[in-house]
């Protein structure tokens, strides 16, 4: 009996044989635009560029030595001048290109009109959009940020492996493909650290902010307060307080309201206790995200109640004990988080740096 090769369901993904997979084809079409279209330089062409043979007379050789010596002295003097004069700016990476999307956004003194091409955003410069303008900034190796109307966005640092923007007011939509932890955005009340994602960040005139993650997850931190925001979740932040507790937007209205008051409005232990009661009763399985954060934000007396409710919604994995969580054992907290499926916290621990310290020039 002859064996007939059965087509496998991933044949198209493997070598384009078999029945085309429409999803793979769609991705190929979408991502094909990033293909490196530049052909590799041909060796024959490079080899053809040979130095022109020179015939030097004795006189011209002597002149060339003298000219060479003068040029070397000039170059040396210029180099010394530049070294003594230069200040470290942090602007050592490629530039962020600002392009107009609508209206007349401004970068420093430059206004971008419909006819303007993209211009570079330099360290310390601010991109300003008025009520009728929008812009995008792109850095090939890092990502793309769309800036909505009524925003002020400043470039703080742009070193290799360290890109930092400051959103003073307004809204940005960031799509980041840089490795996790390289791209951060300061707001007046928290620092958003990208962990491979797509997100929207809004800051109002009071400096309060809201971060909404569409894909991947984002770390939001300030002065030791950390919040991890996975896809579909949001997190508020307030000046002088820092990031609040993240939550999924489809949580019940009473849950969201109680959480907002718990984070930013409650002033007495009694008030916090009453609000915590609402949170524990209203929490659904998905709200494990919020309860996990609350473990380290409630008093020692309230922690067992949070543990018990969280354990009933998302049982702790092997190796994570009640005692360990009540004493806020970090490896156990991390292991529990990673069991939720929102993203491995190892990413954060690996890529986290001391981003909450603002750079000296920015203080």
């Amino acid at each position, binding site marked *: 009996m002859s064996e007939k090769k059965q087509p496998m369901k*991933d044949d198209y993904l493997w070598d384009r044989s078999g029945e085309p997979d429409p999803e793979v084809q769609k991705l190929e079409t979408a*991502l094909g*635009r990033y293909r490196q279209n530049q052909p590799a330089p041909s060796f024959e062409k490079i080899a053809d560029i040979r130095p022109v043979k020179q015939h030097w007379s004795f006189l011209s050789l002597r002149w060339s030595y003298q000219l060479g010596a003068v040029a070397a002295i000039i170059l040396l003097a210029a180099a010394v001048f530049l070294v003594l004069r230069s200040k470290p700016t942090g602007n050592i990476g490629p530039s962020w290109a600002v392009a107009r999307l609508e209206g007349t956004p401004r970068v420093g003194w430059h206004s971008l009109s419909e006819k303007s091409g993209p211009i570079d955003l330099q360290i310390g410069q601010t991109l300003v959009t008025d009520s009728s303008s929008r812009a995008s900034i792109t850095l090939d190796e890092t990502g793309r940020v769309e800036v909505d109307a009524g925003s002020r966005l400043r470039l703080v640092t742009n070193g290799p492996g360290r890109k930092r923007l400051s959103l003073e007011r307004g809204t940005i939509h960031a799509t980041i*493909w840089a490795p996790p932890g390289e791209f951060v955005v300061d707001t007046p009340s928290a620092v958003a650290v990208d962990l491979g994602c797509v997100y*929207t960040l809004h800051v109002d005139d009071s400096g309060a902010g809201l971060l909404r993650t*569409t*894909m*991947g997850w984002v770390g939001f931190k300030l002065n030791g307060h950390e919040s991890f925001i996975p896809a579909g979740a949001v997190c508020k932040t307030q000046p002088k307080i820092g990031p609040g507790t993240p939550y999924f937007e489809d949580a019940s209205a009473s849950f969201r309201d109680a959480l907002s008051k718990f984070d930013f409005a409650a002033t007495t232990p009694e008030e916090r206790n009453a609000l915590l009661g609402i949170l524990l009763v209203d929490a659904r399985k998905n709200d494990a995200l919020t309860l996990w954060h609350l473990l380290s934000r409630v008093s020692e007396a309230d922690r067992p109640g949070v543990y018990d409710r969280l354990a009933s919604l998302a049982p702790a994995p092997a190796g994570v004990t009640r005692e360990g969580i009540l004493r806020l054992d970090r490896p156990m907290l991390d292991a529990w988080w990673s069991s939720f499926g929102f993203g491995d916290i190892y990413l954060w621990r690996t890529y986290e740096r001391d981003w909450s310290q603002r750079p000296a020039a920015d203080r």
Partner: protein
Amino acid sequence: MEKVTEPVSENQAGSRTTNHASEQEADMILAAVRALPEPYREPLILRLVEGMTGPEIAERTGLTHGSVRVNLFRGMRLLRERLDKAAGSQGLSAT
């Protein structure tokens, strides 16, 4: 003489909007691929961005055909999950 700018037709405006949307979508997909775990990221970029086939990827990376095939398959499955999840939360508009 001053240049007169032609008014943008509805079709042109529509096509710009469409281009912008597909550009945004492509950026988002690329971000999702770049955020995949290391073993899946490179083969999927070579396959979907550079247009290489599995055997070509194996030759280039020095991995066996079996490893590349498994990584492509698992990476694609994870990518689908993440894109589906993102599509589910796309309805969330900016504040």
